[in-house]
C-alpha cells in the first residue's frame, strides 16, 4: 500500500505542476500559429483590421479574397460560439498587450447574444494568459454558471489532447489556416441535407443583459483606443434568415447598434425585415446582397461553404470600402 500511496502523490504533484505550467505558459506555443490571439500579441504578425467573432467569421470570411485585395491587413480571430462577454475580454487582452489596429469587425451573431455565457471553444483557454482565464471564470461565476465540473474542464482537462499531440496535430491544424481564416475546402450541401441537420434550438429568444453590456463596453474600449467598430451579420441559410425568432433578435441588435451609433452591415433578409418595421431609416443601404436560398453556398444552416464564403467576402469588401 505504501508504494501505491507514494505513486499516487508523485503523480498528483506532477499533474498539478503540469496544470500550472499549462495555464500560464502553453499559450507561448501558439505564438507562431497562423491563427489565434498570441500571434498578434507576440507581434509575429500584425493587422489593421481584426475580425473578432465566432465560427461565422472563420467560415464566412475568405482570407484569400482579403489578402488579394489588401495583403497582410486582416486577421480573423474566430472562436466557436464566441459571445460579446468573452469578445470584450479578448479585446482587452489584445489592447493591454499593445496590439494596434484600426478597425474591429465584430460578429453580429444573433444566437450568441441570447445564450447565457458559455465558453464553447476550449482553445480560448490555450490562447490566453492566466488572468484572462480568470476573467472568463469570473463571468461564468457572476452568472451562476460555474460548477466544479466547469472549473475542472477549464483549468485541468481543457486542451490536454492538443498539447500532448502537439508536434503532429499542430502541423495538421496550422496547414488549414491563414491569418486566422479557414483555408480548407468546405463543400456546399443540398437543401434536403441542410434541412435534415439538427436545428438550432435555443431556450429563449431574449437579448441577454450581460451580452448587451459587453457590447457597450466593447464600443467604449474602441472609442478610447480610436478603433472603428463595425458589426457584421454573415448570411444564414434561408430557413434561419426568415425565422421570426431570429429576426426578432436581429431587430433588437440593430436597434442597439443604431442607438449607440455603431456602424453595421446586415444580410439582405434582415434588412428587408427591418425596413418593413421602420421606414424612417434606410436599412437596405446597410445590406449586403447574398442568395440565402442557394444550398451550394452553405455547409449547414449558419455556416457558409467555400463557394459562399468567396462570394460573400467579395461583396462585403465592396460594401466596406463604399
Amino acid at each position, binding site marked *: 500500500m505504501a508504494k501505491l500511496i507514494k*505513486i499516487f502523490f*508523485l503523480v498528483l504533484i506532477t499533474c498539478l505542476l503540469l496544470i500550472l505550467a499549462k495555464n500560464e505558459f502553453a499559450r507561448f506555443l501558439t505564438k507562431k500559429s497562423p491563427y489565434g490571439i498570441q500571434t498578434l500579441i507576440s507581434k509575429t504578425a500584425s493587422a489593421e483590421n481584426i475580425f473578432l467573432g465566432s465560427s461565422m467569421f472563420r467560415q464566412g470570411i475568405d482570407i484569400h479574397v482579403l489578402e488579394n485585395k489588401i495583403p497582410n491587413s486582416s486577421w480573423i480571430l474566430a472562436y*466557436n460560439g464566441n459571445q460579446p462577454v468573452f469578445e470584450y475580454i479578448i479585446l482587452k487582452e489584445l489592447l493591454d498587450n499593445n496590439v494596434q489596429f484600426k478597425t474591429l469587425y465584430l460578429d453580429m451573431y444573433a444566437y450568441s447574444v441570447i445564450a447565457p455565457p458559455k465558453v464553447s471553444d476550449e482553445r480560448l483557454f490555450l490562447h490566453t494568459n492566466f488572468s484572462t482565464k480568470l476573467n472568463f471564470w469570473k463571468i461564468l461565476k457572476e452568472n451562476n454558471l460555474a460548477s466544479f465540473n466547469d472549473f*475542472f474542464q477549464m483549468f485541468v482537462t481543457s486542451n490536454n*489532447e492538443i498539447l500532448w499531440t502537439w508536434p503532429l*496535430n499542430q502541423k495538421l*491544424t496550422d496547414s488549414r489556416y491563414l491569418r486566422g481564416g479557414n483555408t480548407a475546402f468546405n463543400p456546399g450541401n443540398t437543401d434536403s441535407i441542410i434541412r435534415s441537420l439538427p436545428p438550432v434550438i435555443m431556450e429563449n429568444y431574449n437579448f441577454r443583459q450581460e451580452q448587451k453590456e459587453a457590447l457597450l463596453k466593447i464600443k467604449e474600449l474602441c472609442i478610447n483606443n480610436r478603433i472603428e467598430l463595425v458589426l457584421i451579420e454573415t448570411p444564414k441559410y434561408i430557413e434561419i434568415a426568415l425565422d421570426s425568432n431570429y429576426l426578432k433578435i436581429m431587430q433588437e441588435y440593430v436597434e442597439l447598434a443604431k442607438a449607440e451609433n455603431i456602424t453595421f452591415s446586415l444580410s439582405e433578409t434582415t434588412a428587408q425585415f427591418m425596413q418593413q418595421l421602420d421606414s424612417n431609416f434606410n436599412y437596405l443601404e446597410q445590406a449586403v446582397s447574398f442568395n440565402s436560398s442557394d444550398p451550394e453556398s452553405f455547409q449547414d444552416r449558419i455556416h457558409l461553404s467555400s463557394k459562399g464564403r468567396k462570394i460573400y467576402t467579395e461583396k462585403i469588401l465592396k460594401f466596406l470600402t463604399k
Partner: protein
Amino acid sequence: MQFSIYLFLLFCFTTLAIFYLFPKKARPFILFTSSFLFYGLCDFRFLGLLILEILLTFFIANEISKHSDNSKKSKCYLVLGILSVLGILAGFKYFDFFIEHFSLSFKSVLLPLGISYYSFKAISYLIDVFKKTRMVETSFVSYATYISFFPHLICGPILRSNTITEPIKKGLSYNPNLFRQGVLLLTSGLFKKIVIADRIAAYTNTIFNSPESFPSFALLLALLLFALQLYCDFGGYSEIAVGITKMFGISCEDNFKRPYFALNIRDFWRRWHISLSSWLRDYIYIPLGGNRKGNARKFFNTLATFGVCGIWHGNALHFILWGLWHGVFNSLTPKQDVTKFSLPTKILAFFLTFSIVLFGWLLFRIESFDALRLFLSHLIFDFSLNISAITNSLLPFTYANTCMAHFLTTLIFTFILFIQEYLQEKQKDKEYLFFGIHLFCIFLFCQTGNSPFLYANF
C-alpha cells in the same frame, strides 16, 4: 440520484470510510443498510420490488432446505421460486416487447434498475440450495446483502451467493493485500470508463444515430470504436465493482479477462462477462444436458443458452439475434487448446474471432433490420478512402479542428490499454507502472460529463 460514476464513487468512498470506522460485527449491517440506501437513492420507486424479491426468495429457499433432496415439495418450491422471480423479471422487462409486437393497448412499464442482475442472483441461490451445493442462508442480513450488494447491484457482476455470505460469516476485516488489489482494479476500471469509454461515446452515438450522413470510413471506425467502448464501459465498471468489493475485504473473481485477445468464440466467452457466461453454463446449458446427449442436442443446448443470453440483454429481436449469432459460432467451434496455436494461426484466429465479435456488436447496437441493412450497404458498397473521407470521418470527434487531437489521443489510450493487456496476457503485469499511468490519465484526461453505464440498461 442519477447513476453516474462520480456519484457512485462518492457513495463508495463514504461507505468505505464508515465501514472501517466501525467494529467488525457492525460491518455487515453497514453493507446491508448502504446497499438499500444506494438503491433507494438511484431509484426509490422500485425499492419495494427489490425487498419483495429478497423476502420471497429467502422464504422459498428456507422451505426448499426443509425438505429432503429432490422431494416433490422441494421441487415445487424451487419451481415456484424460479417462476416468481422470472415472472417479475419478464413482467417488467419484456412487457413492452409484447405491447409493441402484438399491438396491445397497454401502457408501457418502466424497467427497475438492476433487475436482470439481482433476479439471476436470486435464481442461482435457489438452485444452489436445492442442489445442496450450498447451505441455506440463515442470516437475512447476509442474504439481503448478497442480493442487493451495491457495487454489483446496477451492472453486475452476477456473483454467486458464497462470494458474499461466506466472508460475512467469517467477519469482514481489513486485508491489506485485497485492499491493494482493489485500488489497482479501481484505477484501471476508471481509466477504461472515464478516460476511454466516455471519450468514445459521443463519437459512436453521432455516427450510429445517422450513419447515412457520414462517409463509410466513419462507419467502420465507429464500429471498431463501439467494440472498444462497450468493453471499456462494461469491463471498466466491472473492474471498479470488483475493486471496491475487494476494498471491503471480500475476494471476488474478475468479470473480464482481456476478451479481445480471444482466439476463438469459445475462448471469447471464457473472457467476456464471465459471471453471466458461467451462470448460463451452470444453470441452463448443463441442466439442458450440455454436451452429454449427442451433437444435435449439444447444438440445440448451445443455441438455447445463447438465446437466453440475448433475451437477458433486452426485449428486442436484435439482442436475440446477437445471442444466436454467438450461439452458432460457439457450436461450430471445436474444442481446441488455443495456447498451442502457432503464431500465424494465432494471428489468423485473432482476426477471424474479432471479425465475428465485431459483426455481433453491430447486431447488438443497431435496433432494426432496416437500419442494419442501410448501415451494411453504406459501409460495403460506398466504401472509399481518401483525404476528404478521412477528414469527414474524424470531424465528429469534436466538430472542431481539435478533432484530430482527440482522435490521436484515443489512439494513444487504446495503445496503452493494448500494452497493459498484452503484458497481463503474458503474465508480465507491470501493475505499479500502469497504476501511475492510469492515475495520470484520470487526472488530466477524464471526461467529466454525466455519462451513464451502458450495461445499467440491462
